[in-house]
Each structure stands twice: as structure tokens, then as C-alpha cells.
């Protein structure tokens, strides 16, 4: 379970460029839940994801993952508990190394490493079986450099690697945004399958309303560093893309509702 309490982060505090990226955010993700974060640019969704990943330390608040208070853990220490897939399909893997070598490194994430043969015949067979589930024919190319793969293939493999060790939480940061539409759809489909099969707890940032409706079982909407909507349970089941669009619209219109509007309505809303 991920528990975020009263989390706040302000960048460039007390300057003209001050950005209050997270404002007293509270969020609990149950084990096995798959949550999407949506929001406009600058709403704080990636900042929230990065706060969990440990990219920076929050100003106030706490983050608990399982039984660990990871609020002040450095990023590398959290790696044993957290799997990540980035927007850039070329991030998170080493282009010059083979698919097999990249997978071996991913499996050792957050663990002590020693000198012994990493790729045994049995292990190679296991890897081939897992990679075959992607249905991309990559099981026959395990010794090819990962840099020779397309963005979609590479992102699918990155997803598989991130989920391999069954992390306590899987963080997906707009992981289909840089792919062509066909590859994005394929990776989105794999995301749902892998998370369900492995019963992972996942937090996904996305700009795609359709993905937010189709993939996860919960949607949270952020605006100006706050969680402004939380579609969960029955609410999530009935929510559709136009509903999310109208909520965005409503949130933005609320910003236009200033004191002068209030004064005008006091006269005319009778």
C-alpha cells in the first residue's frame, strides 16, 4: 500500500518563479490497485509521481510504501521497491547492451550484485518465455542490442522488465506518449495485462483521457498541485471521456469565477 500524507512541494520558493507544485496532497493506493493521474500541464501529476520515485524531497508530508517510511530515502534506495517506465522509450535501458543483458540488470535492481554467471541456459529459457508473452517476436532476438528495437518494442520490454521483480509499486510516467498510435495502443494493452496478471499496484500519469478510462480502476485528477477529483469504484465504472473533459472544463471555469462574477450573480441569480 502507498500512503501519501499532507505532501507539499514548492519549487523556487520566495522567488518570482515560485511554483507550488504539490499542495497538501493526501492519497492512499490499496495493494493491487491501478490508478491513473490526469491533469493539465503543470497540474502536479508528474511531480507527484517523482515524489514517490524519490527524484526530490518534499517540503512537508510523508510517503509510506508498505511498511516503510520512504519520505527521506534516496532514489537509488527506493529502486528495490519501485518499478518505473518513462515517457522516453530510450530511457531506462542501455542501447548498446543486448535485450538479455538489459533484463538481467533490471532483475538485479536494488539488489547486491556479485561475480557469477548471470545468464544460464535455464534463465535464458525463462526470459524467452516471458518475452514471448509480448507477442512481438522478440524472444528470438534476445542477443540483439536493445537499441536496434523500435520505440514500441523497447517500451514494451521496459514495461516487462519493470514488472519482472514484482515491485511494491509500478510508476508509469506517460509511458505511451512518445509512441506512434499503433505502438501506444499495443503498449497500453500490455500495461493492463501485465498489471492484472502480476497483481501490481500501479500509478500512471497520462494525458490520454481514453487511456485513463480504459486501463486503470481509479482516476485522480490534479489541478494546481491539488487532487480535485477522485473517480473510484462505481464512479470510475460509469465515467467516460466526455465526463472527464467536462470536469476539466468545470475546474478551469471555477478559476474564472472570481469576486466580480460573485458580485454579478448576487444581483442576478435570484
Amino acid at each position, binding site marked *: 500500500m502507498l500512503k501519501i500524507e499532507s505532501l507539499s512541494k514548492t519549487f523556487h520558493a520566495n522567488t518570482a518563479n515560485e511554483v507550488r507544485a504539490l499542495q497538501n496532497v493526501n492519497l492512499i493506493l490499496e495493494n493491487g490497485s491501478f490508478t491513473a493521474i490526469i491533469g493539465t500541464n503543470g497540474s502536479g501529476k508528474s511531480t507527484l509521481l517523482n515524489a514517490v520515485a524519490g527524484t526530490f524531497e518534499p517540503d512537508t508530508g510523508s510517503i509510506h510504501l508498505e511498511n516503510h517510511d520512504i519520505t527521506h530515502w534516496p532514489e537509488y534506495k527506493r529502486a528495490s521497491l519501485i518499478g518505473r517506465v518513462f515517457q522516453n522509450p530510450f530511457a531506462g535501458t542501455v542501447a548498446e547492451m543486448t535485450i538479455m543483458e538489459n533484463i538481467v540488470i533490471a532483475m538485479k535492481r536494488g539488489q547486491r550484485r556479485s561475480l557469477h554467471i548471470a545468464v544460464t541456459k535455464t534463465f535464458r529459457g525463462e526470459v524467452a518465455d516471458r518475452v514471448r508473452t509480448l507477442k512481438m517476436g522478440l524472444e528470438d532476438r534476445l542477443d540483439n542490442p536493445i537499441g536496434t528495437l523500435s520505440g514500441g518494442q523497447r517500451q514494451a520490454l521496459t514495461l516487462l522488465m519493470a514488472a519482472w521483480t514484482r515491485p511494491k509499486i509500478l510508476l508509469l510516467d506517460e509511458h505511451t506518449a512518445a509512441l506512434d498510435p499503433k505502438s501506444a495502443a499495443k503498449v497500453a494493452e500490455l500495461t493492463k495485462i501485465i498489471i492484472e496478471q502480476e497483481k501490481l499496484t500501479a500509478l500512471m500519469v497520462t494525458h490520454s483521457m481514453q487511456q485513463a478510462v480504459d486501463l486503470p480502476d481509479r482516476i485522480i485528477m490534479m489541478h494546481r498541485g491539488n487532487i480535485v*477529483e477522485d473517480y473510484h469504484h462505481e464512479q470510475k465504472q460509469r465515467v467516460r471521456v466526455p*465526463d472527464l473533459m*467536462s*470536469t476539466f472544463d*468545470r475546474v*478551469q*471555469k*471555477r478559476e*474564472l*469565477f*472570481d*469576486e*466580480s*462574477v*460573485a*458580485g*454579478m*450573480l448576487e*444581483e*442576478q*441569480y*435570484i
Partner: protein
Amino acid sequence: MKIEYEQRGKYLLIRVMGRLDAAWAEYFTEELFLHIRRGQHHIIIDASGMVFLSSAGIRSLLRVFKEINTVKGSFLIVNATDFVEETLITTRFEMWLGDEFPADMPAFSSGNEIENSGIEHFIFNENATLILNGQAGWQPWQAIDHSQVKRVDFSQDTVALGIGSSAETLNEARDQYGEFLAVAGNVVYQLPDEQGHPDYLITEKQYVPRMQCIQLLSYSGEMGYHNRFAPTDKTLFYPLSAILKNMLDHVKGKAIGFVMLGEIEGLVGSFLSRSPGLLEESQKISFPEIRDWLSFSGERSYRHQQALIVGFTGNTEDLPGQKKLSVLPSCPEFLAHIHGAVFPYQPLQNGKIELKTAVQKFFNGPPPLAVMHLVDDARPVVGLGESALIRGACWFSPLQNPEVLS
């Protein structure tokens, strides 16, 4: 494909040259729908230059034909090439084919008569009046007193606006009070939930829509007057105050009840985002808390959709002390209380049309998009102005007992 248009009296002659196939069908449909929207309801297609007609093309013609039918217009294909004629006969659409142009179609272009029609005025019965009845007077932000909630059946002859709920019991209604309007046995109401989806009720056999109303202005009676308005070269759209002024001029300034249907240029309004039934006690709610209770359109919204508008208006000096109408800032000699419902666009028939038939069409079509209390946003510099319609119709009559508004 090349399309040429020529106005011939009430007919729009459309010369179609090239192939009407999948590549052009959508473009062709959109072009013709645009002309229907502009009031061109009698369409003659000269198909002498149409060299090919595919199934997609026939589907496009069928969509235009159906749209024309909804406004009781006419649709004819003349001078068809052998291929087009054979295709239409084979597919059983030979009823569209004509041997010659209609007898009443002028031989030469006559300019754009439809676009220049401006405001037309019809009188059904100049002695007709409306009787105000069934009032409920909730004012922001009073706690709801159950004894003041009125349970109202909206029959065919009642027109109303207010704040209410379709719930059966007062307890269920508590968190559901939102803006509504009722016309011709139909009610459309805004649910004050976060998503703000409107819902609607339609009279069907024995069933009559019923609402629990905390605020209600309703009238029954005969609509004696009818206006049609359409853009002209000088007037591209009509602000509500201009339409109100025109209506009031016809009844010598008496307070009126009215219904409008029209294509929207922009609506400016507000609606409840939280039910007043949840108020624990009467209080003054100011900024910023007011934002939790009311939503504001924030822009001139729903352009090119269709509005069904219900309201009351009168001259300020004739309605002293009334509490249910507010002054229109851009036209301070008028008081008004106006609710508008938004429906997906459907064309209206030209000329004199009957209120109930016209309204029913919208309730039988795609679901409504919004209901709001219309306001006149005359804030300096940042004001959105007042709501406006591009073309449409209104029905109105003087109120027999306007003193009830006080």
C-alpha cells in the same frame, strides 16, 4: 467535386459537378447541412454534371433528404445523368428524381431572400393572455423549509421555470434541487452534481412529469404572438435584450411570459453545483464559498447548438417591488427571469410554427446538454455580455396578473 449555388425564389439550386463518392460525401453533406441551418429548406440538385454516385453518395443524399423532411422542406434531383438516374432507380430512390424544375421556381437568380428575412411577426390571437400560477419563492441562500416546497405536475398547457427536483420524496429531493424549465408537458432539469448532466421528463400517456419545486414561476394560457428571427446583412445575431424589446413592443410594454427556440450564438449563465437542500441554515454565501454552490459558464457557451428558453420580462416601472425578476444591466429598463436549456442542434421549420410541435422535436431527439439561469454579464472590461441567438422563434403573451410576481 465542384458545387455551385443559386437562389431561385424559395429554392436553392445546387449544381453538383464531379463524383459524389466516399471521398466527397462527407464534404457534400456538411455543405448542404450548413445551408439547411441557414434556412434553405427547399433544395433542388442539378445533377447534369454528376458523373458518378456511389453508395456513400446515396447515403449523403439520404441524410440531406431526412434533414429536409424534418423541417417540411422539399428535395428534388433534376437533370440527372443516365448513370445517376439508373443508380437512384436501382436503389429505390427514384422519388427524388424530377423531370423538370418546380413550376413556382423563378428562371433567374433572385438573391438570398432567406438570409435577409430579419424579424417576422405573426399574431395568433391578440387578445390572448397568460395567467401566472403556482409560485414558490426560494431565494438564495435560504435553508429549505419543506412546507414551502411545491409538488407540481407539468401538464401540456403549463410553461414554467424554477429550481426543483424530480425525486418523489422531500428527503430524496434534498440533494437534487437544480434549475429546470417546463414546456408543453416536458421538463428538462439540471442535476446539481459534480458532472452537471441534465435530465428530462416527457409526458407519455397517463404519465405527467412532476417536480418538487423550491422556486417556481409558472403560467398557463394561450400564446397570442409569434416572432421569427433570422440574421440579416447588418444583424448577425440577436442579443436577448433585443428579442425581449421586440416582444414587449408588440404588447405595448406589458409584462409577458415567453418561450424561445433558437440557434445559439452564445449563452451566459449560471447553475447550481450543490443543492440548496443541503443548506443547514439560511445564510449569506459570498466569494469564495459561493463557487461551491454555483457554477458560472465562464464564456459565451454552446455556440451553434439549440436553446429552449423560458422566461418572464417586463418594464421596471410596471413591476415595482417584485422579487422574482432582476434588472438586465445592459438594458436597465427591463426586468427578467430567464432559464435556458441547451439541446444538440436540429433545424427549425421556416415560417409560422406551432410551439408544442417545435418543442417536442427536441425532447424526442438527442439528450439535452445543459440547463442554466441566464444572466447579463455587464462587468466592465471582462464581462461576457448577454446571451444571444442567431435565428429562431419565440412565442409570447401578456401576463394577466403580473402583480403575482411581487
